[in-house]
């Protein structure tokens, strides 16, 4: 029974690890520690109505609680959240300062909430405003690539000429060509709202799409090219086969949009319905249109339904369409789990975990990947298990696979 509980525990651990890595809590706590913040005061429990009469004792106790609550001195100091801070390359950033990336390299800008903005070579921009929940980036020319941390209440915007790109949490590129007054927005994950000039109420751009619009030309919306990185040179030319031009005033037409319902169902956790709709729409074409995050969610939905072939297909689509990204590495890890746990194909599992480790040697799943690679190589009788065991012990001497690693390497505890 202990073995079965250990297997359940391993599953729980991996699942928690995914959620923990996405929570972003560690970075916030680090910041609070570094600045000497006091512990956050939690909301005071409040009294539930209608149960005071349960007993006289509880009524009296409740009365005391209420009395204490009412008579407690009101808090006079309101908590005012601090604006985000940011670092430009290695220097502390200054709001409003002019940033100009040299022609041969980009400039990274890291915000304290985990958001990352990169100015592509030759791009010019300013961080015009910073608030506790986001910032406003003024793009003067060139391309910026943004990965906005998905946090409650996040408010980010990128201004480019007369256009504004409103963001909550997503990954995208914005290019601005002042000479043509043209903006190009390319979405890798999530969605943004672009407003200004001829766009009227605004145009939502979702993962996998590229919007190009200028004040003089009608909007063009196309599937994002792969790899989805916009460059100033690419601004005028969207792929001819995929572009549909709408007439002015623009009512942009989307060519081959991702099935939005699948993404929406996944975001609501309606896994079975999402999977069913993906099958109805055509699973392969769904895999060709969803963003990376949604594809991982679709793979998870398939896995929960024990439809491992579909999970496999969605994960391979992530790796094919978004190479080199965190999502691609995570997909490799999930492929390893499926090969190991569902198919008992330990050789393939070991290869998949190795791929994750190669692509993200210090990623959030590195400990699990190394441990699972060790397990897989051991089960398949692969001599590489010994090397993995030594590597595991060197990196995680107290980790959950340390006992196995010691057995294999012959190390003493």
């Amino acid at each position, binding site marked *: 029974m202990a073995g079965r*509980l250990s297997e359940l525990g391993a599953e729980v651990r991996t699942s928690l690890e995914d*959620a923990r890595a*996405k929570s972003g809590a560690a970075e916030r706590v680090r910041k609070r520690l570094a600045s000497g913040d006091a512990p956050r005061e939690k909301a005071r429990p409040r009294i*539930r109505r209608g149960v005071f009469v349960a007993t006289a004792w509880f009524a009296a106790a409740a009365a005391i609680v209420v009395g204490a609550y009412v008579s407690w001195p009101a808090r006079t100091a309101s908590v005012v959240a601090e604006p985000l801070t940011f670092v430009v390359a290695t220097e502390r950033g200054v709001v409003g300062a002019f940033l100009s990336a040299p022609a041969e390299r980009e400039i990274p800008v890291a915000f304290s909430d985990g958001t990352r903005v990169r100015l592509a070579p030759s791009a010019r921009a300013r961080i015009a405003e910073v608030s506790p929940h986001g910032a406003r980036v003024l793009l003067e020319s060139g391309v910026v690539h943004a990965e906005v941390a998905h946090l409650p209440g996040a408010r980010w915007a990128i201004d480019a000429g007369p256009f504004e790109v409103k963001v909550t949490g997503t990954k995208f590129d914005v290019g601005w060509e002042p000479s043509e007054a043209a903006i190009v927005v390319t979405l890798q994950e999530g969605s943004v709202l672009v407003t200004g000039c001829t766009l009227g109420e605004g145009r939502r751009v979702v993962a996998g799409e590229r919007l190009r619009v200028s004040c003089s030309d009608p909007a063009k919306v196309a599937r994002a090219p792969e790899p989805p990185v916009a460059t100033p040179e690419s601004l005028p030319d969207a792929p001819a086969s995929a572009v549909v031009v709408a007439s002015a005033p623009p009512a942009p037409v989307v060519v081959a949009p991702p099935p939005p319902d699948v993404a929406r169902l996944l975001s609501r956790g309606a896994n079975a319905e999402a999977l069913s709709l993906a099958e109805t729409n055509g699973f392969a074409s769904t895999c060709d249109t969803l963003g990376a995050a949604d594809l991982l969610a679709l793979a998870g939905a398939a896995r929960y339904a024990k439809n491992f072939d579909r999970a496999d297909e969605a994960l391979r689509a992530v790796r094919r369409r978004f190479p080199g990204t965190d999502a691609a590495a995570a997909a490799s890890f999930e492929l390893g789990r499926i090969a190991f746990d569902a198919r008992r194909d330990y050789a393939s599992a070991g290869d998949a975990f190795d791929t994750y480790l190669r692509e993200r040697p210090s990623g959030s799943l590195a400990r699990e990947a190394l441990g699972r690679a060790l397990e897989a190589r051991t089960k398949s009788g692969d001599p590489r298990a010994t090397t993995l065991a030594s590597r595991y012990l060197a990196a995680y001497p107290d*980790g959950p696979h340390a006992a196995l690693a010691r057995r294999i390497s012959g190390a003493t505890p």
Partner: protein
Amino acid sequence: VLTPVRHTRTDTDDRRRSVVRELHPGRASDAEIVIELRAGVRSAAALLFDRYGMHVERLLWSLLGPSGDAEDLLHEVFLRAMAGIGEIEDPARLKSWLTGIAVITAREHIRKRTRRSWLRFVEEPPEQVQPAPSEEVNEATRRTFEVLGDMGGDERVFFSLRFIEGMEMAEIAVACDVSISTAKRRLKDAEKHFVARARRIPALVPWIEEGGRWPAD
């Protein structure tokens, strides 16, 4: 009452600082970090967190599950550690000392929540921190923590440390400040109670009855 270490900069402090700052963070030993923390050098707190933050955070998640409280507790563990840094007897055992603080903090939290849920007239306030990403964890995880939530705080801790965190019995004994034989006894009880409850939950039955991570139909 927890009081964070406040560092008022003085000339003496400047002279004291800082072995850690001058060393590459990866090369500073645990003992050196402890010395810096005892001297009140705030930058050492970041170094301590960089080295052991992920370990403690993982441990808290293993003990508490997908709870919105993990962030505050992570903060609390490190504040406690910095406040009590003078008490550590062997600075080289910094990690296991921190593990012990994390376990104590999580146990206290579980007990507090249990007491609050017993006092039915007190309603838990909604979480103000990051919402727990419960939609991101799978069914087996959610059900496992439902079962653990019905178990006693101590039993739950022993079970989580062994089966979710994957710790060895000797490590569990140190973290919970009990003998190995006591740890084994408590774990045996926890295992028995968990299995009895889990058998009533359809999503966990295949794990208990059949074994295997995603048992095929």
